[in-house]
């Protein structure tokens, strides 16, 4: 009994000590400058830490057009392996009639990384930006995306009209005087323009359904085993 009473608080302290630093919620999502997710201050990601979450909220334009934003985000940081940031937003026009005016959306997922060790954040940065815009978007609608670090873009993808796209880019970034700063700010930005006449339930997203590359190996192995089994059976019959 005494053992249990002592063990419980100690285990709680240990749990907080070991797990709390590795799960930090520091990402924030803004739409047209308005904070929607992660608006209170949180410490940036340090070595070995990660964050993830889901979001689902509505945004109403002055002309009355309503859009829903939903998806998942995550980010990690390791001094050895570097920084990662990931998001798959889906934006849906929620109106019951075609949109009234042109609605321009500037969607940002920002994430701070903190590393006080020597020496530089400079190096090669990569981005993969899948984009989709439904053909039911109003004439002249576009979608674009990019990731920036301390204000330097890896490369703007788009703007594209309706369709499905996926672009990977890389860039050597040199942050100059900012390099001595222990903090690096990543900003995943999507610029979506829904022109007037966008039909209800029109979506723009940054996620593509792609064949699972990891499945090619087991599929190939399975086919080889099946063909081997048939050949062996036929061979034993002929004998």
């Amino acid at each position, binding site marked *: 009994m005494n053992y249990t009473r002592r063990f419980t608080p100690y285990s709680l302290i240990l749990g907080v000590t070991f797990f709390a630093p590795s799960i930090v919620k520091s990402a924030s999502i803004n739409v047209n400058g308005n904070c929607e997710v992660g608006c209170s201050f949180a410490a940036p990601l340090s*070595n070995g830490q990660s964050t993830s979450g889901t979001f689902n909220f509505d945004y109403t334009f002055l002309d009355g057009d309503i859009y829903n934003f939903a998806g*998942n985000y995550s980010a990690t*940081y*390791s*001094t*050895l*392996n*570097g*920084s*990662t*940031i*990931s*998001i*798959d937003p889906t934006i849906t026009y929620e109106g019951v009639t075609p949109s009234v005016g042109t609605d321009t959306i500037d969607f940002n997922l920002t994430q701070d990384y903190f*590393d006080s*060790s*020597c*020496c*530089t*954040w400079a*190096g*090669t*940065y*990569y*981005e*993969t*930006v*899948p984009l989709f815009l439904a053909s039911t978007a109003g004439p002249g609608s576009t979608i674009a*995306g990019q*990731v920036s*670090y301390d204000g330097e873009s*890896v490369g703007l993808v788009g703007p594209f009209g309706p369709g499905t796209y*996926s672009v990977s880019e890389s860039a050597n*970034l040199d942050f100059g005087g900012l390099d001595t700063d*222990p903090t*690096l700010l*990543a900003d*995943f930005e*999507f610029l979506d323009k829904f022109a007037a006449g966008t039909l209800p339930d029109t979506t723009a997203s*940054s*996620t*593509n*359904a*792609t*064949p*699972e590359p990891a*499945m090619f190996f*087991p*599929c190939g192995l*399975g*086919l080889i085993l*099946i063909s081997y*089994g048939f050949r062996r059976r036929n061979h034993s019959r002929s004998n």
Partner: protein
Amino acid sequence: MNPEKENPIPENVEAGDSVDRRKTLIQVGKFAAYAAPFTVLALSKKAEAATGHGPGKH
């Protein structure tokens, strides 16, 4: 001579056909059972999110 005893081939052929058909069906069934999971795996897709990554401080 009894003509039925002289020519028993049709009955045997019919029986053989039935056995062959059953074997073929079993083979097809086994192949389908083996192939189904791999077909499901081949058709499975994953959602690709927008990602960015860079080096750690160095």
